[in-house]
């Protein structure tokens, strides 16, 4: 089936003529299948629809969560104590929160985005250190023993072996990988970060104004962490940085402290400036290096302006083509992203609609409603004004998103 809509986009957006037919020289077999697919589906590739098939299952985050929710927020060591479930239960109340305020809630909901996983040793979350592994292994080893109240069965001990093995392999891997990451990133803000992130919208707004936006909410138990909160460097902020550096005499002469003072930006700590300055210096240093050497190399190539390869193209052409390819990939990604956002929106709308009619939102229901054009609702949903309203709102929301997302 031809996705005409996407072709329209491509034809207006991409200034490249893709003439498949005769102009192709012999291309090795690996490409033939590709070419066939290409010619079958039209001049340009189909819209990438590699989004997870999530349309089928839109789950309600409200209502019937009940006893299910407690394990989610449970602290690791509190698993054996049912009483402790109560402290971890903001889930129900949080479920209704709006997205903009939800980040903090999220942190408390899942206990993972907070740096204070108190019952659990400094965690597999933000910081990866050997302790959690031992803790976990030790814990998993303990589980069969600790389950005396339930009764230790053979089955259980087998499972715990399996579990221990799993933990041994996987958690160690996780820890190892992250440890090496951490070592490479020593001194950067990654190490003790964090917790909760602000939502994207405030960031976008603030970034336009050039104000630094720290991507972290202060959390009660981590005063030191705010110092190393992750910073989002926008071009505007960077511009101010460069100005300050130039005022101080250049990237070599400038000191983090001086730059920080000159910039007069809130939320910016000296750690941020330090690491940024380091990156800045590296970025300037390398081009200078290669400048010297590449000139020599390239001047010898001046005698061979075009390299005689398949089809006799030169370097610029190669670059141009590479660029085209990249541009197209970019377009596809943008489309994919807006589609992903829209799918989520649609799911929410459906959810709203169904709830308005007090239809229990289960998987079956949502699966049925999201089939095909949505007009084939297998439920008997009476056409009331509220339904129309909601669906209209959803449509407006969706359309708006299209317009804003695809510019």
């Amino acid at each position: 089936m031809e996705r005409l809509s996407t072709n329209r986009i491509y034809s207006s957006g991409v200034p490249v003529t893709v003439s498949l037919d005769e102009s192709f020289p012999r291309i090795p077999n690996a490409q033939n299948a590709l070419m066939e697919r290409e010619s079958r589906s039209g001049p340009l590739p189909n819209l990438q629809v590699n989004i997870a098939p999530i349309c089928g299952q839109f789950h309600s985050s409200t209502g019937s969560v009940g006893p299910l929710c407690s394990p989610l927020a449970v602290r690791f060591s509190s698993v054996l104590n049912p009483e402790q479930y109560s402290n971890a239960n903001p889930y129900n109340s949080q479920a209704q929160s709006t997205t903009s305020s939800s980040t903090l809630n999220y942190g408390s909901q899942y206990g993972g985005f907070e740096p204070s996983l108190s019952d659990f040793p400094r965690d597999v979350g933000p910081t990866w250190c050997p302790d959690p592994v031992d803790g976990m292994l030790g814990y998993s080893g303990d589980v069969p023993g600790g389950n005396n109240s339930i009764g230790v069965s053979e089955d259980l001990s087998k499972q715990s072996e399996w579990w221990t093995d799993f933990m041994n392999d996987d958690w160690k891997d996780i820890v190892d990988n992250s440890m090496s990451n951490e070592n490479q990133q020593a001194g950067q803000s990654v190490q003790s970060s964090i917790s909760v992130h602000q939502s994207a919208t405030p960031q976008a707004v603030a970034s336009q104004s050039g104000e630094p936006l720290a991507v972290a909410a202060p959390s009660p138990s981590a005063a030191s962490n705010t110092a190393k909160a992750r910073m989002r460097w926008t071009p505007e902020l960077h511009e101010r940085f460069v100005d300050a550096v130039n005022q101080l005499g250049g990237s070599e002469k400038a000191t983090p402290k001086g730059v920080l003072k000159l910039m007069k930006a809130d939320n910016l700590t000296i750690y941020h400036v330090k690491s940024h300055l380091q990156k800045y210096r590296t970025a300037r240093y390398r081009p200078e290096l290669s400048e010297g050497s590449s000139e020599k190399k390239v001047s010898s190539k001046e005698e061979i302006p075009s390299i005689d390869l398949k089809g006799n193209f030169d370097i610029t052409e190669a670059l141009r083509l590479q660029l085209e390819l990249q541009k197209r990939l970019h377009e596809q990604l943008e489309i994919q992203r807006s589609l992903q956002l829209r799918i989520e929106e649609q799911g929410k709308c459906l959810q709203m609609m169904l709830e308005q009619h007090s239809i229990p939102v289960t998987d079956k229901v949502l699966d049925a409603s999201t089939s095909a054009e949505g007009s084939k609702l297998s439920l008997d949903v009476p056409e009331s004004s509220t339904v129309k309203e909601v669906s209209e709102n959803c449509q407006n929301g969706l359309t708006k998103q299209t317009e804003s997302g695809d510019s």
Partner: protein
Amino acid sequence: MKFGKRLKKQVEESLPEWRDKFLAYKRLKRLVRLISGGNLSPRRATAEAAFVRVLDGEVERFNAFFLEQEEEFVIRQRELQEMVKKVAAGEEAWPSGAAEMRRVRKEIVDLHGEMVLLLNYSAINYTGLAKILKKYDKRTGRLLRLPFIEKALQQPFFATELISRLVHECEATMEAIFDTEREHTGTRMTPWMWIGFQNDARDAASILGFPLHFNQQISMAYLSSDHVTTGSRLGEVAEGVSDKADWNHEE
């Protein structure tokens, strides 16, 4: 192509520094299998808590990596623009002017490519998250997916507007710089030919004289995005959505 396989391929083709920054999809799948296998309450709760914890950790990692790369790109973009200004205005005598031009072009294409790859990174990790959450919900009957995904949508690693903007700026800069000279060309090569050529000569660098070090990954990302999900529910939804939403606005 199954997602796990696709992810694996992308990881293999990616720059070495990037390889361990992707979603630990397989690991999470195993966790889900474990969870659904064990039916005893404490066992299950343990595994579920671990699952959530791993997920959180993954998102954390994405954010960290993404923001770091973003910062670097912001810096490089600005430096490049300075360079472009110099080269465009400088017009030094041949051959060094041309050499500069060549270098700048290459730098721009490199930067552009890396930024697009970062966008791809974001997209594929998001997809992986969505998929694994769906699996989780399916196996456990819990309702973890929707709230988690909502939060994921707001995370820095998915808030790619800035990078997208940088990419567009890069493309604009490129228009200027690629059009200044009238290059003679032999047979026009199309992008598909270019991919084919790259796949032939694994090391395009040796022929071109300089490395386009991630052209492999770009091709990979581009090609793998071309899988058609005909007949799937998703395909239908995509159709439905694109019909409802007014694509004509694009024109």
